[in-house]
C-alpha cells in the first residue's frame, strides 16, 4: 500500500519534508540511512529549461534533457550529499493539492520536481490524468469509441456506485498508454502513486462531490516480475511484482491512524492526533487554555481511527529454488481490504513496493543497527492457479468465469518459442525422442505415453453424460524391460503425477479415506492418490500386486472419473479425472505368449478393457538389443552421461510444451477426420468377419472408437493444431493397432480379437470350447444312461481322444465342458464322476 506515503491530501502527497523528517523509528520509513540518501526525493525547484508540461508529450520529451540530473540512483545520492535540499515551495503551497496540473503553468515556467529526480510533478500529474481519462482498451477504436468513456473512467464510476475503496489499474495499460509514466511509476512508486491518488480523488470529486471515501489506486500486472532471490538493495523502494506461496498469515492487527485524547481533569477532548513517525505522542498537558493540567490526557479508544493490518509471509515457489537451496521467504504487509484475502497455501502474485526498515537498538534510542528488515508493502494480490504445472483444467468446459481472472503463466517469448517448436515438421518424432531419452527403443510405447500426456478432450454434455478425455495405458512385460523407469519418468513429467506401487497401496491409499479425529470426533475426508492426481496422471507400478479392493475402485475411476466414498455416514463422490498409467508383471515372471494377456497377468477383463492402450513389452532374446544395452550401461558408468544426450528437448521445455498444449489447445474433429474414423472403424470391425464362415470375431468395440478419438485429439494437440486432421486419425489407428496386436492377438489364428481383452477368451478359443462341449454331450448321450451309473472324467477323456484323434484335449478343458453341461442340467458332477440326469 502506498498509504504511508500517500498521506491525506492535507499534507500534500509525499511531501518531501514529511519524508525527510521521518525518524528512525517510523515503521513506515524507508531504510533510514540508505533509503534516505539514495531514494529520498524532494521536489526542488530547478532552474531547468524544461518546457512547461502541457501534455504527456511534453512530459516525455522532458525526460531526457534535464540539467543537473544524473538519472542514476547513485548520482542522485551524490548530489544530495552536497546540495542541501533547495527550498520546496511545494510544502507550503501544496502543489498537488486539488488543483489541476495546468495551474502550475500559471505560476510561471518553473516546474516542480520530485526531489533528486527529473520527474516533474506536473508532468506526472498531467500524464496520469490523461491516462485515466482517455485510456481505452482497444486502440483500434472506431470513431464511435471516441465518444465513449475511457476504461478507467468507467471503472471509477463503478467504484463510486459500489462505494469501493480502490481502483485496480493494469500496469500493462499504463505502459501501453504512456511508457514513460510506467517507468516513473515503477522507479518512484511512492511519489507517483501519491500523485495517482490525488488525481483520482480529483476525478472522484468532480463526478460526485459528496463521495467521502478515499479511493486508492491498486496497480497490478507489472510487465516484469522478479523472483525473490533476485531482490537486492537496488530494488528497495521500487515497485516490484513476484510470485510465491503464502505460508503464514498473522492475525489482524488494528493499527491506529488517528487518536483522540481526553483530559481527565476538565473532560476536554483533543483534536484527532494523526500518526507521526509511526507513533502518537500523548499530549503532556491539557490543551484547553483554562485547564492546562499536566499529564492528564488519556486515550479515548472508541474515538480513534484504526486501520486493519496484517503481516503475511510469502515463500518462493518450488520451481525457483536452485539445486541445493532452501526456499527464501519475504514478509508482506497488507492493509485494509487486502487483509485476509489470502490464506496459507495459496499461490499468489504480489505487486508492491519493496521496503526496508532499520532496526532500532532500543525503543528510545535514535541509534540504529546496521541491519534492515525488508518487507513488501502490498498494493495488489492476485491468486494464481494452484496446480503444480499450471495446468488449468483443459477439460473443464464451464471454467470460463475463473479463466478470465486467472493468470497467463507463460510469457510471450516462451509461447513464441513453443509455437515455433510446434511448427517443426518432425515435432512428433522429436517429442518421442525426448521422452525418456535413455530408455531406447520402445518408440511406439513412448508415442502412446506422449498421447497420454497430452490427453484428449473431455466432453460434458448438458444432459449430464460425459466422456473422459484421459487416456489410460497399461504396460505388461517381462522384468528388466525398464517399465518402472518409464513410469518414473512420466511421473516426473506429468502434471500432478502421483506415483504409487500396487504392492504398497491399499484401497485407502489409492482412493480416499474417511478418518475420525480422535479428539473432536470430526470426520475428515482424506484424499488418496487418485483424488490427489485429479487432472493428472496416476502411475501405478506393480498393478498386478494390487489388492482386489483397490482394483475395484479403479473401475469407477477409469470410466466415470470419480471416486465414491461411503463411510461413516458420508457418501461423497470425489473427482478423480486421472489418466492411469499402470504396469504389470506377468504371473510366471516371464510372459507366456501362448496364454492371453488376462491369463498372463491375472487381471479381471472388465478392468483391462478400460485401458485404451495395452502394450506388451517383451524381452526378445536379440543379441542386437543386448549389445545396445551393454553399450549403454558401460557408457553410463565410464563416460560423462550428461554429455551423451543429443537433439532432444530438455525436461523443462517438454513440460512447458505439454502444459501449454493441455491448457490452450482444444482440438475438434474435422469432417475429414470424422469420416476417416468411421471408415477405419468399420474396416476394423469387418476384419472380424471371415468370408464364408459364420465365425464372428470382435476386432473392435465402441470403446475403441472412443479411444481413437482421444488419441487423435492428443495427436492434434501435439502439433498445437485446433483441428484433428486425417493423418492424426491414421496415426491413432496405427497406435491402437500396434498396442492391440501385441496384447489382443489371438495366437491360434493371428487376428486381433477384442474378446481376448473384454472377456479373456478369444473367439477361436470359444469356438473350440463349444465344439468340445458338443462332443462331450454326444459321448455322454452315447455312452451313458439316464440315471445310470456314473462315469469318471478320465474315461470320458479317453473316449474323446478316441473319437477325434487329431484334437488335443486337456483334462481341465474337459472339466470346463462338463461344468457347462452341468449348468444346463444335463449331467451332475460329483468330484471326478459324472452322472447323466
Amino acid at each position, binding site marked *: 500500500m502506498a498509504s504511508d506515503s500517500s498521506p491525506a491530501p492535507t499534507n500534500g502527497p509525499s511531501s518531501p519534508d514529511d519524508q525527510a523528517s521521518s525518524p528512525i523509528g517510523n515503521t513506515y520509513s524507508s531504510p533510514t540511512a540508505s533509503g534516505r540518501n539514495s531514494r529520498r526525493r524532494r521536489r526542488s525547484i530547478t532552474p531547468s529549461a524544461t518546457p512547461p508540461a502541457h501534455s504527456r508529450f511534453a512530459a516525455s520529451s522532458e525526460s531526457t534533457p534535464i540539467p543537473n540530473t544524473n538519472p542514476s540512483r547513485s548520482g542522485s545520492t551524490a548530489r544530495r550529499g552536497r546540495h542541501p535540499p533547495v527550498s520546496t515551495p511545494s510544502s507550503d503551497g501544496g502543489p498537488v493539492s486539488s488543483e489541476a496540473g495546468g495551474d502550475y503553468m500559471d505560476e510561471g515556467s518553473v516546474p516542480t520536481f520530485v526531489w533528486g529526480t527529473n520527474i516533474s510533478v506536473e508532468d506526472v500529474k498531467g500524464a496520469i490524468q490523461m491516462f485515466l481519462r482517455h485510456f481505452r482498451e482497444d486502440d483500434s477504436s472506431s470513431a464511435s469509441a471516441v465518444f465513449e468513456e475511457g476504461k478507467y473512467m468507467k471503472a471509477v464510476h463503478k467504484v463510486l456506485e459500489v462505494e469501493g475503496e480502490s481502483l485496480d489499474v493494469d500496469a500493462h495499460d499504463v505502459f501501453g498508454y504512456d511508457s514513460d509514466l510506467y517507468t516513473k511509476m515503477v522507479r518512484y512508486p511512492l511519489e507517483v502513486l501519491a500523485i495517482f491518488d490525488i488525481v483520482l480523488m480529483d476525478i472522484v470529486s468532480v463526478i460526485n462531490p459528496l463521495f467521502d471515501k478515499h479511493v486508492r489506486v491498486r496497480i497490478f500486472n507489472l510487465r516484469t516480475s522478479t523472483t525473490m532471490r533476485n531482490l537486492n538493495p537496488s530494488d528497495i523502494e521500487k515497485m516490484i511484482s513476484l510470485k510465491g506461496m503464502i505460508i503464514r498469515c498473522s492475525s489482524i492487527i488494528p493499527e491506529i491512524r488517528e487518536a483522540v485524547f481526553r483530559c481527565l481533569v476538565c473532560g476536554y477532548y483533543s483534536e484527532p492526533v494523526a500518526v507521526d513517525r509511526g507513533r502518537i505522542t500523548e499530549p503532556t498537558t491539557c490543551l484547553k487554555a483554562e485547564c492546562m493540567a499536566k499529564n492528564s490526557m488519556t486515550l479515548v479508544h472508541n474515538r480513534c481511527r484504526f486501520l486493519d493490518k496484517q503481516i503475511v509471509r510469502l515463500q518462493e515457489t518450488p520451481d525457483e529454488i536452485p539445486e541445493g537451496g532452501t526456499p527464501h521467504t519475504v514478509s508482506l504487509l497488507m492493509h485494509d481490504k487486502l487483509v485476509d484475502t489470502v490464506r496459507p497455501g495459496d499461490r499468489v502474485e504480489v505487486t508492491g513496493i519493496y521496503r526496508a526498515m532499520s*532496526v532500532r537498538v*532500543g525503543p528510545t534510542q535514535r541509534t540504529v543497527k546496521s541491519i*534492515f528488515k525488508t518487507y513488501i508493502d502490498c498494493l495488489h494480490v492476485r491468486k494464481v492457479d494452484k496446480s503444480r504445472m499450471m495446468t488449468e483444467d483443459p477439460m473443464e468446459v464451464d471454467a470460463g468465469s475463473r479463466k478470465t481472472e486467472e493468470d497467463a503463466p507463460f510469457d510471450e517469448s516462451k509461447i513464441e518459442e513453443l509455437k515455433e517448436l510446434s511448427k517443426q515438421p518432425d515435432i512428433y518424432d522429436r517429442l518421442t525422442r525426448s521422452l525418456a531419452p535413455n530408455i531406447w527403443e520402445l518408440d511406439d510405447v513412448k508415442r502412446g505415453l506422449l498421447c497420454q500426456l497430452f490427453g484428449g478432450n473431455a466432453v460434458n454434455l448438458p444432459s449430464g453424460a460425459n466422456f473422459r478425455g484421459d487416456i489410460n495405458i497399461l504396460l505388461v512385460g517381462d522384468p528388466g524391460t525398464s517399465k518402472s523407469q518409464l513410469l518414473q*519418468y512420466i511421473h516426473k513429467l506429468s502434471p500432478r503425477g502421483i506415483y504409487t506401487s500396487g504392492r504398497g497401496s491399499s484401497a485407502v491409499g489409492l482412493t480416499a479415506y474417511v478418518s475420525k479425529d480422535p479428539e473432536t470426533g470430526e470426520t475428515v475426508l482424506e484424499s488418496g492418490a487418485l483424488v490427489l492426481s485429479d487432472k493428472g496422471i496416476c502411475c501405478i507400478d506393480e498393478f498386478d500386486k494390487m489388492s482386489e479392493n483397490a482394483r475395484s475402485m479403479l473401475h469407477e475411476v477409469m470410466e466415470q472419473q470419480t471416486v465414491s466414498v461411503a463411510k461413516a455416514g458420508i457418501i461423497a463422490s470425489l473427482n478423480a479425472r486421472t489418466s492411469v498409467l499402470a504396469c504389470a508383471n506377468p504371473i510366471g515372471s516371464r510372459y507366456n505368449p501362448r496364454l492371453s494377456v488376462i491369463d498372463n497377468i491375472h487381471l479381471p477383463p472388465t478392468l483391462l478393457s478400460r485401458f485404451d492402450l495395452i502394450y506388451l513389452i517383451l524381452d526378445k532374446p536379440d*543379441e542386437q538389443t543386448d*549389445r545396445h544395452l551393454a553399450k549403454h550401461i558401460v557408457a553410463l558408468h565410464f563416460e560423462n552421461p*550428461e554429455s551423451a544426450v543429443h537433439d532432444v528437448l530438455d525436461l523443462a521445455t517438454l513440460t512447458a510444451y505439454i502444459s501449454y498444449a493441455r491448457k490452450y489447445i482444444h482440438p475438434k474433429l474435422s469432417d475429414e477426420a470424422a469420416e476417416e474414423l468411421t471408415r477405419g472403424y468399420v474396416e476394423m470391425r469387418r476384419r472380424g468377419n471371415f468370408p464364408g464362415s459364420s465365425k464372428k470375431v470382435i476386432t473392435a468395440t465402441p470403446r475403441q472408437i472412443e479411444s481413437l478419438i482421444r488419441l487423435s485429439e492428443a495427436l492434434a494437440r501435439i502439433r498445437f493444431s485446433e483441428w484433428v486432421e486425417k493423418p492424426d486419425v491414421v496415426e491413432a489407428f496405427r497406435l491402437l493397432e500396434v498396442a492391440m496386436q501385441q496384447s489382443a492377438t489371438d495366437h491360434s489364428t493371428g487376428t486381433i480379437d477384442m474378446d481376448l481383452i473384454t472377456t479373456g477368451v478369444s473367439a477361436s478359443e470359444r469356438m473350440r470350447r463349444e465344439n468340445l462341449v458338443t462332443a462331450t454331450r454326444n459321448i455322454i448321450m452315447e455312452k451313458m444312461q439316464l440315471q445310470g451309473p456314473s462315469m469318471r472324467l478320465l474315461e470320458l477323456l479317453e473316449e474323446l481322444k478316441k473319437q477325434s484323434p487329431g484334437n488335443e484335449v486337456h483334462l481341465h478343458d474337459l472339466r470346463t465342458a462338463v461344468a457347462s453341461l452341468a449348468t444346463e442340467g444335463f449331467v451332475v458332477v460329483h468330484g471326478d464322476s459324472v452322472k447323466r440326469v
Partner: protein
Amino acid sequence: MVGPQYDLLANPLGAVRLTFERAMAAGIAAGPYSASDGKDWGAVPLFQDFLFDHSRLSQVPILNHETVKWIGANTLVRYRGMVQDMLGNEFYVGAHKVGSVWKTNKFSDHSQFPMDSSCESRVWERRLLYCVPVPGLNSWAEPTWDGLQAHRPVDFTSPQRDKRPRMDIEEEASGDGSSEHSPSLKKMREDGHPSTSSQCQDSMTVESCHQPTMLADTERDSLPCLVKIYDSPESDLQLNNVFEFIGVLTFDSDIPADKNARDDFSSSLCDEELVRLPPSKVPRLHCIIHRKLELPDFLCRSPVIEPNHHFVKHIREALLKHLTTIFGNDGVVAHFVLLHLLSKVHARLDNMAVGKFSLNLTGLSKESVSVFGSQLSIALKNLLPLTNFIPLTVGYLNRASLAPKKDYQLNRLIPGVLQLAEGSHLIIDETQLEAGTLNSVGVENASLLKDLMEFQKVKYDFQYYSMEMAADIKLLILSEGKSNILPADIIVPFQPSSVSSLEVVDAESLDAWRWYLANVRSLEHTIQPEMQKVVENDLVAARQTDRTLGSQEFSRWLTMARLISASFGETSLSLEHWQMAKELERLRKERLG
C-alpha cells in the same frame, strides 16, 4: 600490505577497515558509488595470504562448544559445519560516512561509529546460513588447533571475566568497545585499532552458555552457528555441504535485547528465526573465507604417501585383512565391504544414481549382531570420518523424523536423521525389526529409506510440497534375511567362521587406512576402448545365457569393476580387475544359492 600492522587473528576487523579506507583513499574504489555493491576491496586476499600462504591456518582458534566459552568476540575463528538451513538474505548498512570519511561495516554487526540517521550510507547484502556441526563426525576427525593447550587454562582462570557487568546496550551500540579485554587477548593484539567496535560482549555469553536450556535441536555439546556470507555466488554454498568458515566471531544480537520494548510491528516483521536463535547460544560468524570440505579434508594427519600403486596395494591388503578379521574370517564379505566403503555417486542420470553401492549383509541374527555389528560399527567409526547408525524397529519407524521438515511457525528447517553430509556412512540394523503395524509416519519413513536406497535422494517435507535433495550416503544394512523394506544393490550372506576380539590397530596404519578410504574413492576412472569391447561382449554373452539379467545387474557389475579397480589405485579398468569383479559376483551368487 597492511599485514604486519595488524594481528589478523585478534583484530581482523581492524585490517578490514584499514584496507577499506586505503582502498577508498587510493581511489581504487573510486568513491563508494562504484563500490556500492560492497564487493571485496582487497581484504579477503590479505587473509588468504596470511592463512594459506603463510600457513597460519592452524593458529586460528576453532569454534566449538568448548572454546566458545572463552574466545573473544571480533576475533578470527574457524568453524566447521554443515549448512543445515538457509535463512535468506540480510540487508545492512555496508558503508557510511563519518564526517567526510567512508567507513565500512562489512564483517560486523555494528557500526564502529554511531550512525546518525541522517548520514550517508550504502546498503549491502549478505546471506545467512544456519550451520550445525557435521552429523556423525567422529572425534578423531575433528580439527585441531595449535593454541589449544596454551590458551585454555589462562582464560578459565581469568577472574576478570566473571565479574564483568553486563554491557549496557547503549555502550555496546555506540561502539565504545575498546574497553578491557582478557589478558590473553590483550597480549595477542599487537596493535588495536583506535576504536575497535565492541569486542567484549562475549562476557555475557560466558554465563549464558551454562544455562541448561538449549534449543530443542541443539545438543548439549554441539554448537550451531549462524554464518553470514559475503560476496559469494549462491551456487557455491548448498544445503548439506560441509564447509570450514573462517571469519569474525560476534555474539551480537540482531534483535533488540529488550523484548517487551519492541513494538508489534517490528517484532512480527522480524524474522522469527532470529528471535529463536539467541546469540548467546548461536554465535554469529562473519565469514571472510570459506572452503568446502571433502572427506579427505577431515584427516588431520594425512600420511605423506606418494600414491604409488605398490603402496596403495599394500594398504589395501592390510585393510582387507583387518576387515576379514572383523568379519570372522569371511573374506568375501570383507571384499564387498571394502568396495562398499569406497563407493560414491559419481553421476546422476534421470533417476539413476550411478556408482551407489549399498550393501545388505544377511544372515545376522539379534545375537550375532551384538558381536559382529558392534565390532563393525566401532571399526567403521575408526576408519571413516562420518558415520551414523539407525536401529530399525517398528517403534523407531513410527516415531523418528527421518526427513527434514519445514516448520513455518519457526520458519526453520527442522533437521531429520537423514539430513546428512555428502559421503556419510549409515548402518541400518534391521535385525531388531519385529512384526508390527506402521502408522502413517512409519510408512512415510519406510518409503524415505527406500527412496534413499534406490535413488540416493531424500524428500524434504515443505508441508505444501516436497523437495527432493540429492544425497550421497553409503548404506549398509544388517539383516537376518534379505531386506525387502530396504532393497540394497548387493545382498551378501554373511558366513563367519570364527569370532575374534577386536585387534588393536596401531595409529600409523589407521592413518594410512583413513587416507586410503578417503582418497581412493575420488579417483577418476575411465575405460579403454578395447576393454569396453570385452566388457560389452561379456555382458551380451551373460544375457544370452541368462535372460533374467537386466540393466540393474549389469550396472552393479560395472560398479563393482570400477570399485575394484579403484581399490588398487588404478584409474583405468583392466581385464584382471574385470575378472575379479566377475569372480566376486560368482562367489556371491554361490552363497545365495
